[in-house]
């Protein structure tokens, strides 16, 4: 395998001009030539739907692949709190530069500056586009857009639609996509799962997909491939992700040569509903926006058994407000999560299993009235009530951190192209903009930035030189070989006939990763995981049980493929965590912390992107380093005091 070379292709010039200069510098494809190009988009969430719709509008021919029955089922639909935009409508000091700065700092100085600046720049265009599509953002009485605050920022820059912003943004993108499907510019392939990437002469030329209804394996060929397949949080089994969210598309691309960057940067969201038992299938998110009006606390006395509403303020420890006066309950997610874990680990947890902390709306309800709180968070309170049987209008919510988002992903350059020519990666599936920790309300922003504004501008640079060429025929050996490999993998999973279910293995993988590679990682714990995972993986391939055949809908088989990939991905994630001997953002090594228990970075030795190359030997991947140079932002110890 040839050694990967990573060239971020960051444009020259002052940071505020890079994107504009770049848009002029890249090659364009003439409008009447665009229909001669075919682009395959995998994934229909914010990144995929917006990209497919926009490319269709521009005149490209697009094939959209989703394993769901409809594009609007993608997990972006569940995002709750809001989307950031540097509009400064609130007149409180926001600007493109401030959003850029907050995001780089929030990422603990481990993101690529130029990408983040561009993200802040186009954030204003995203809000405009969404409103034009009819996204029903919350409004003030004068008819103008409303805003709220979010973690890691001291300005109010988040636009929202109740507690269902992701849903509304995805519906906006999906509707634009639907128009293109109707016009014939986008062909939709639903209930089809990508199971491999196909390369010819080192370039991405298509994918192999499997029809989930009849099991048929077939190839899709194009001039370029775009992966917008989301994050890998489900490697932990329990996360806020949907059950079908998985890393197979990016893992298969990685095995074909795409570098995978910073997999150890995983985000644990501080406010999720605590687990109640072993049968729990996922952890439900309670939006960060709740921290605008909710106060987090635990009883000062761990043996206090009084109901929460009877514990007076003097006996409560509002620990985030105590430790971080300037940001209080709105500290970034990694800081809040570690603080809550500390309280529970030290025996001050609440709830029947003592595995949570309180998020209390009592004071806000008194101050603003129940109706105001209902308007802002109605659906979230309802959701909490259904799951726990407790009414958050009467008693505080119980919350605990849970795996939520993954900052790592496939490495991409400034054009969002991976090191494999012709392979683009958007949204959570790529590594680029959030560094080691993502701020709230910025994932929605990034998915749409990548799909509406960045990819449509940069893809021409790759396509233009290919004018006149047809996509590789799907009976070319590169495709038939890849199809045969997929067939073999599927057949192998069906023929093991072992004794344990796929979910059993998935849960075991999740347990070892949560315990050993979760919020607090150590050399010992990571090495333990590196012993557990390969053993579990071997056992999986010898003892998994998948009933039924591959010729009809078989959800066990679908899961088996995804877990098989997680069993490999998980090992790389742990190796990345082990090699990074510092703490930054969501990656916390207990050996590297300040006296106050905050993350201690080592900028001298680790200010780089760790991009891993697949070598065929999972125990020995090759590390490539992309150095991170900060010209515009001054590195500092992150403080939210």
């Amino acid at each position: 395998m040839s050694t990967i070379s990573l060239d971020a292709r960051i444009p020259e010039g002052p940071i505020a001009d890079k994107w504009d200069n770049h848009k002029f510098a890249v090659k364009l494809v003439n409008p009447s030539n665009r229909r001669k190009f075919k682009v395959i988009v995998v994934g229909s969430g914010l990144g995929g739907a917006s990209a497919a719709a926009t490319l269709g509008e521009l005149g490209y021919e697009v094939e959209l692949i989703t394993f769901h029955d409809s594009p609007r089922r993608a997990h972006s639909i569940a995002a709750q709190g809001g989307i950031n935009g540097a509009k400064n409508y609130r007149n409180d000091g926001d600007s493109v530069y401030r959003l850029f700065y907050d995001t780089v700092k929030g990422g603990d100085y481990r993101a690529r500056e130029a990408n983040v600046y561009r993200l802040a720049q186009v954030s204003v265009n995203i809000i405009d586009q969404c409103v034009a599509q009819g996204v029903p953002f919350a409004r003030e009485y004068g008819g103008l857009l409303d805003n709220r605050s979010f973690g890691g920022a001291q300005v109010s820059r988040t636009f929202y639609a109740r507690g269902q912003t992701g849903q509304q943004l995805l519906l906006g993108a999906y509707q634009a996509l639907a128009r293109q499907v109707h016009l014939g510019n986008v062909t939709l392939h639903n209930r089809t799962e990508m199971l491999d990437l196909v390369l010819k002469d080192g370039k991405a030329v298509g994918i192999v997909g499997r029809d989930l209804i009849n099991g048929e394996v077939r190839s899709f060929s194009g001039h370029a491939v775009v992966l917008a397949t989301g994050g890998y949080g489900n490697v932990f089994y329990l996360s806020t992700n949907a059950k079908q969210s998985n890393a197979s598309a990016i893992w298969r691309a990685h095995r074909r040569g795409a570098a995978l960057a910073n997999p150890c940067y995983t985000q644990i969201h501080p406010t999720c509903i605590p687990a109640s038992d072993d049968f729990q299938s996922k952890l439900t998110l309670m939006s960060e926006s709740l921290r605008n009006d909710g106060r987090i606390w635990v009883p000062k006395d761990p043996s206090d058994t009084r109901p929460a509403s009877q514990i007076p303020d003097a006996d409560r420890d509002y620990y985030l407000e105590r430790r971080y006066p300037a940001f209080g309950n709105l500290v970034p997610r990694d800081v809040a999560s570690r603080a809550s874990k500390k309280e529970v680990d030290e025996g001050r947890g609440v709830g029947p299993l003592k595995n949570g902390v309180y998020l209390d709306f009592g004071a806000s309800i008194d101050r603003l009235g129940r109706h105001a709180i209902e308007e802002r968070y109605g659906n979230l309170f309802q959701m909490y009530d259904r799951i726990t049987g407790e009414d958050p209008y009467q008693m505080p919510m119980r919350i605990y951190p849970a795996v939520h988002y993954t900052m790592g992903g496939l490495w991409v350059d400034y054009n969002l192209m991976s090191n494999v020519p012709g392979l683009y990666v958007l949204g959570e599936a790529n590594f680029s903009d959030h560094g080691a920790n993502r701020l709230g309300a910025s994932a929605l922003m990034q998915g749409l930035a990548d799909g509406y504004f960045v990819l449509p501008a940069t893809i021409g640079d790759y396509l233009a030189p290919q004018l006149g060429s047809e996509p590789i025929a799907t009976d070319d050996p590169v495709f038939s070989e890849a199809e045969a490999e997929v067939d073999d993998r599927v057949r192998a999973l069906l023929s093991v006939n072992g004794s344990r279910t796929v979910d059993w293995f998935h849960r075991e993988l999740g347990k070892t990763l949560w315990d050993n590679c979760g919020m607090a990682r150590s050399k010992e714990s990571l090495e333990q995981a590196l012993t557990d995972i390969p053993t579990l993986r071997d056992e999986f391939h010898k003892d998994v049980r998948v009933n039924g055949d591959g010729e009809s809908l078989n959800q066990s088989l679908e899961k088996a493929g995804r877990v098989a990939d997680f069993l490999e991905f998980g090992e790389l994630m742990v190796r990345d965590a082990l090699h990074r001997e510092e703490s930054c953002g969501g990656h916390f090594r207990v050996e590297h912390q300040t006296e106050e228990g905050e993350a201690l970075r080592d900028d001298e030795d680790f200010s780089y992107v760790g991009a891993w190359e697949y070598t065929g030997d999972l125990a020995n991947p090759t590390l490539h380093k992309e150095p991170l140079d900060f010209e515009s932002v001054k590195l500092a110890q992150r403080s939210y005091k």
Partner: protein
Amino acid sequence: MKVTLKLWRQDGPDAKGAFASYDVDDVSPDMSFLELIDVLNERLITDGDEPVAFDHDCREGICGSCSMMINGRAHGPELGTATCQLHMRKFEDGAHITVEPWRARAFPIIKDLCVDRSAFDRIVEAGGYITAPTGTAPDANLILVPKEVADAAMDAAACIGCGACVAACPNGAAQLFTAAKLQHLNLLPQGQPERWSRTVAMVDEMEQWFGSCTNHGECEAACPKEISIDFIALLNRDYIRAQFKQRRLAGQK
């Protein structure tokens, strides 16, 4: 607690299908209905049988994937609750629960409890959008939207496209879904230029696939997001007005 499930099994679209009976012990009241099926499936797999196929994803009532008739009611006995949000504490110990897929001609069965709901996407593709190509948008605050209008549009836009409305309707009509998708856009200033053509296009597409609405109101009761049938009234009004508006827009009186 223990429950007995009478659950629909069907191997494929053309297979006959039948109810199968399953006893599930050790059910925790905190379990969700889908977690109950997960537990059943683990047992079935270990016993060498095929697990029950069912659509699901987010497990938090927003993606619209889950779709079970529980004791004859779409999404079960609780108002404003999707199947994945239904917890076993709402059932008695020893309960007998009948579980079926959505029943509607427009939603053919794929396998067991999975149905094909792509007719919904055809309705949205027919006109459920605002034509606003990326990059053409003015500054967001240039479009004033009265708060009441934004709130009403959001109420309609909250539809998760699960199909409970169709499954609950004795006629298998899709008026509530179509009205929700339509009114979300028709109520907003941004939706006005295409309001009449959108209405006609979506309604006409809907009628290709689904039954007719005769105002039973079962849909509203079954909807996990409690979407109001008022939107159907607005759809009907817009449809009639569209017949006149289209002609006036084209220059005829």
